[in-house]
C-alpha cells in the first residue's frame, strides 16, 4: 500500500438505526421482520393532517453515541425537511437535521493490534438524527414489473455519523467501522446488523497524488467518488481497494482533478467485485431544506447531558487498557476479548479474578470457550460452563493434577453434561493417582525398560518420554510430568 504513488483519502458516512421500541416521531414499533405495512400509523405514513412528536428516548440514545464519539452537544438544535419525491417516502420529505445537527466535532480513536498502521484519531464532523424511509421492493418476475412499498421502516430513528476524510487506506476504514460498530454495541444503542439494514455505510474516496510541479507541496486531488451498496465491512474494504486502483488508472488516462467533473456515485457489485457508475439522480440534489414547522426545536440542558453521560459505561478502548494492566495480557489478546463484546469480557474478568491467572484464563477463553461458542453459534450467556466452574478446572490444570489435554476432555464433558469438574472427572474415570501408586508404577517401568534407563543415565533425558507413554497405557489418569519427574529421579539414583 505504502509503495503506491498516491495517498488514498477516505471519509465514511454511517447510518445506524437506533434500538428504540418506537419510531422517531410516532409510537409505532420498530421491530424488524413484521409483515409489510403492519407497523404504521397516520404519522409515519404521512397521512394528511397527522403531525410528528419527537421520541425523546431516541434523542437520548443519539446523544449517548455522540458523547461516546467525543462530540460537542449543542444546547439548541432543530429539525429540517429534506425534500424529494420517492414512493417509499410518503410525505415527500424526510425529517432530518440540516444546519444545526444534534452533535458535532468529535473523534474516534482507532489502532491496529498488528501495527499495520499507527494509532490515530479519526475526526467526526457531525452526527445527526433523522427518520428512515420505507422500503421499495422491486418485483421483477417476468411480466410484472411492479414495485411494492413497505412502510414499516418509515420513521425508524436513524443516526447519520459523518467522519472527516481522514482515513488513508481500506484497512483504516475497516478499523474505523469495526471500532464504531463495537462502540455502538457496547453502548447498546443498535444491533448493527448490516443484513437487516440497521447499519449502512457509504464511502467518499479520492486520491492525493504528489505534485512535482507544485511549489507548495500541495498534492493533486482526483475527483471524489461516493461508493454505495456495500453490504459488509469486508465489502467496504474491497470496494475501496478497487476504487483506488480504478481511480489511479482513470487519473493516468484522463488527468481529471477534483472539480473537473461532477461528483460521481458508484455502486459496489459484490458478485463481480467491481464498482459501477450509478445513473445520476433525475434532478441534481436540491433538497430544498427548511425548518420543519410541525416540530419545535430541541433544547438540551446540562443536567440532561450529564445524566446521559453517567450512563455511558466503559468504552472498548478503555477496557482493553484495563485488561492489559490488570491481568497482564498482551494487546493482541485484549483486542480479541474486547472485540467479542462486553458479555464475554465480563466472563473473562470473573474467570481471571477467580483463578488468579489472567493469561491462563485468556488462553482458555480464546482457545476453548470461543471455539465452542463459534461452533455452536451461541452467546456466552448460553455457555453451560460458568466462570467459577471453569476456574476450578483451571486450578487443577495449574496445580498439575490435570494436563492441558485432559483438562480439555474434562471441559468437553462439563459442556456436554452440564456437571461440575468432579462429576465430569468421575464420568470420564479420571481419578487422581496417589503418590505410592505412582511410585510403584514408575519402579515397574524402570525395571522393565533397561535400555531407556541406560539412555537416561547417559544424559538423554528425552528418552523418558517413552516411559510416559507406557505409564499412560497402564493408567490413563497419571500426570505425565510427575511420571517423567519420578522416573528420571529413580533412574539417575539407580
Amino acid at each position, binding site marked *: 500500500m505504502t509503495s503506491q504513488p498516491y495517498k488514498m483519502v477516505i471519509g465514511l458516512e454511517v447510518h445506524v438505526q437506533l434500538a428504540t421500541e418506537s419510531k422517531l416521531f410516532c409510537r409505532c414499533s420498530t421491530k424488524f421482520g413484521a409483515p409489510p405495512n403492519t407497523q404504521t400509523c397516520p404519522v409515519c405514513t404521512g*397521512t394528511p393532517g397527522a403531525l410528528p*412528536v419527537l421520541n425523546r428516548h431516541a434523542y437520548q440514545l443519539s446523544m449517548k453515541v455522540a458523547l461516546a464519539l467525543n462530540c460537542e452537544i449543542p444546547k439548541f438544535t432543530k429539525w429540517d425537511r429534506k425534500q424529494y419525491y420517492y414512493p417509499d417516502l410518503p410525505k*415527500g420529505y424526510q425529517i432530518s437535521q440540516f444546519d444545526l445537527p444534534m452533535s458535532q466535532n468529535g473523534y474516534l480513536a482507532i489502532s491496529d493490534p498488528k501495527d499495520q498502521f499507527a494509532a490515530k484519531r479519526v475526526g467526526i464532523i457531525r452526527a445527526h438524527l433523522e427518520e428512515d424511509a420505507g422500503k421499495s421492493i422491486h418485483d421483477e418476475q417476468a411480466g410484472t414489473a411492479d414495485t411494492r412499498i413497505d412502510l414499516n421502516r418509515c420513521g425508524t430513528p436513524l443516526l447519520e455519523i459523518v467522519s472527516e476524510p481522514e482515513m488513508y487506506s481500506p484497512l483504516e476504514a475497516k478499523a474505523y467501522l469495526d471500532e464504531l460498530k463495537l462502540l455502538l454495541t457496547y453502548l447498546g444503542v443498535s444491533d448493527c446488523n448490516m443484513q437487516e439494514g440497521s447499519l449502512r455505510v457509504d464511502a467518499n474516496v479520492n486520491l492525493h497524488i504528489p505534485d512535482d510541479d507544485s511549489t507548495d507541496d500541495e498534492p493533486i486531488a482526483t475527483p471524489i467518488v461516493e461508493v454505495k451498496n456495500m453490504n459488509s465491512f469486508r465489502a467496504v474494504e474491497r470496494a475501496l481497494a478497487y476504487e483506488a486502483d480504478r481511480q489511479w488508472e482513470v487519473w493516468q488516462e484522463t488527468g481529471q482533478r477534483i472539480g473537473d467533473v461532477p461528483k460521481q456515485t458508484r455502486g459496489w457489485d459484490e458478485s463481480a467485485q467491481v464498482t459501477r457508475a450509478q445513473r445520476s439522480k433525475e434532478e441534481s440534489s*436540491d433538497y430544498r431544506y427548511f425548518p420543519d414547522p410541525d*416540530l419545535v426545536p430541541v433544547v438540551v440542558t446540562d443536567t440532561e447531558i450529564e445524566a446521559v453521560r453517567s450512563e455511558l459505561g466503559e468504552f472498548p478502548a478503555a477496557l482493553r487498557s484495563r485488561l492489559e494492566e490488570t491481568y497482564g495480557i498482551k494487546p493482541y489478546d485484549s483486542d480479541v476479548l474486547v472485540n467479542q463484546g462486553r458479555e464475554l469480557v465480563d466472563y473473562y474478568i470473573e474467570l481471571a479474578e477467580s483463578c488468579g491467572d489472567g493469561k491462563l484464563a485468556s488462553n482458555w477463553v480464546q482457545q476453548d470457550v470461543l471455539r465452542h461458542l463459534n461452533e455452536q453459534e451461541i452467546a456466552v450467556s448460553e455457555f453451560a460452563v460458568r466462570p467459577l466452574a471453569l476456574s476450578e478446572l483451571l486450578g487443577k490444570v495449574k496445580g498439575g493434577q490435570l494436563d492441558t489435554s485432559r483438562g480439555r476432555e474434562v471441559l468437553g464433558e462439563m459442556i456436554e453434561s452440564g456437571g461440575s469438574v468432579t462429576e465430569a472427572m468421575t464420568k470420564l474415570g479420571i481419578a487422581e493417582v496417589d503418590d505410592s501408586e505412582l511410585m510403584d508404577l514408575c519402579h515397574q517401568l524402570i525395571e522393565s525398560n533397561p535400555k531407556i534407563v541406560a539412555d537416561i543415565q547417559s544424559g538423554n533425558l528425552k528418552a523418558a518420554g517413552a516411559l510416559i507413554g507406557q505409564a499412560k497405557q497402564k493408567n490413563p489418569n497419571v500426570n505425565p510430568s510427575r511420571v517423567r519427574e519420578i522416573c528420571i529421579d529413580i533412574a539417575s539414583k539407580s
Partner: protein
Amino acid sequence: MSLISKSAVEQVQLLQSGQLSSVELAQAYLDQIETHDAEIQAFLHVDRDSALQQAADIDQRRQSGEDVGPLGGLPVAIKDLLCSRGEPTTCASKMLENYRPPYDATVVRRLKEAGAVLIGRTNMDEFAMGGSCENSAYQTTTNPWDTTRIPGGSSGGAAACVAASMAPLSVGSDTGGSIRQPAALCGVTGLKPTYGRVSRYGLIAFASSLDQIGPIARSVEDTALLLETLAGHDPLDSTSINTATPHYTENLSQPLDGLTVGLVTDYFEKELDPDVAAAVREAARVYESLGAKIQEVSLPHSQYGIATYYVIAPSEASSNLARYDGAHFGYRTDEKAMYEELAAERAAMTDEEAEAKLDGPLIRMYRKTRSEGFGAEVKRRIMLGTYALSSGYYDAYYLKALKVRRLIVNDYLAAFKQVDVLLGPVTASPAAPLGHYKNDPLGLYLTDLFTVGANLAGIPGISVPCGESSAGLPIGLHLQAAPLEEERLLRAAYMFQNATDWQTRRPELSTT
C-alpha cells in the same frame, strides 16, 4: 322567534332544560339547509341520516341522565379540511375527492366528546388557499347577503352557513385571515386563536406555522362557547401550548375596566373603502363612550406583511402538499392512458438520446397526477414556494421573510406594552362580486392585508360585525390581542357587541 334564529347559548339552555330535543334542533337546521343551500352552496357534504342519528343518541343519553357535554346536542358545521374518520374529507380539492381519513382530528374528537352533532362539512377554497371560496374544485359558495357576491374565504362555507342560519356554530381555519375575513364579509363573528391554542392534529395542513383552527358563530358568546371546546393542549401536536384553557363564557359579560384600545394608524393609510373606514372609526368612538382609552399605535412593519406571508405560506405549502403525488392516497392519474401516452411518445421519437429524456412511468405519474389533481391557485402557490426554497434563492426569500416576520412580531409586542387590544378593519372593502378576482390573483392576495399580521405573529384576532356598507353589505371590526389573551379579546368584543346591534342583523334569504 324561530328556533334557528336563537343563539347557540340559548339553544343549549333549552336542550339542557328539556324544552327542546336535539333531534328537533337538528331537523330545523337540516330543513334550513334543504331550503337554502342550493343557492348558498355552503356545504360540500351533509349526511342527514347521520346528523339525526347523532342527535337521537344525544337525546337518549341525556334522558338516561348522562352528562352529554357542554355542546350536548348542538349542531356544528366543520370545514372540509378537518379529518373525520371514515367521512369524506376533501379540502375542496379533486386531489382528495374520494379520500376518507383513517382517524379523527383532535378538534373533531373534542367536538364529539362535547356532544356536538356534526351536521355537515363546509366548502372552502382548495386546500384553504384563497379568499373567495371560488377556488373550490366543487362549487362556489355565495354570500347570503347578496348571492352575486363572494362570501370570502377560505372558510367561506363556514361563515356563510352561520350567516344563513344553516348551523349555529361552525369550525373554520385561519392561515392568513381565512376565518376573520369571511366572518366580516358574511356579518358573523369569527376568532383566530393564538397559534398553539387549538390542536392542529388532523387539520390538513396549508402552512403549518400559520394555520390555526377557530370558531365562527353569530355572537361573541357563541364564539366563546365553541372556543372552550376547541381549545386545549394536545400531546399529538408539538406546537400545541401546554396551558390551561380559561372558561371564556364565564366572565364574558363583565366589561374590562381601564381598557386601552390601540388604533392602528398604518391601517388607515391604505386604500380603505370609505364605508369601512367610517364604520371602524365609529367603533373606536363606541369604545371611547364605554370608558376605554383610545391610543394611536403604529405597526411599522405591517406594510411588509403580505410580502412576508406570501413567501412563508407558499414555502410551507409546497412542502406540505408534496405528499399528494398519487402514490399513497387521493387522486391518481389514469394509468392506462398514461402508459398509452408514453408508448405513443416513444414511438414518435427518432433518436435514442431524445427518448432517454422522456419522463418514465414514475415521474410521469407524479406529473400528471399533480397537474390534474390540483387547481390553478394551489399550483401557483406550490410553484412560488418551491422557488423560494430553492438553492440560491432561499436566503433572499425564505430566510429574509423569516427575519421580517420577527420584526412584525416585535412591532406587536411593543404595541401590546402600550395597549390591551388593537383595533382596525378586517378587510379594505365589503364583499366583492363573484368573479371579481378571477384574473387578478395578486388583488386577492392584497385582501389579506389586515389579517396576515396576526398569523405571522401567532396572536389571536377576532372579527365582529360593526356596520353596513351603503349597499347593505356587512363590515367587520378587527380586534387583536397579545398571545393567549383570548379571554380579554372576547370580553372586549362583547363590550362592543353589547353596545351595538350589528350582530343581530340577518340577511334575507330568497325563498325560491
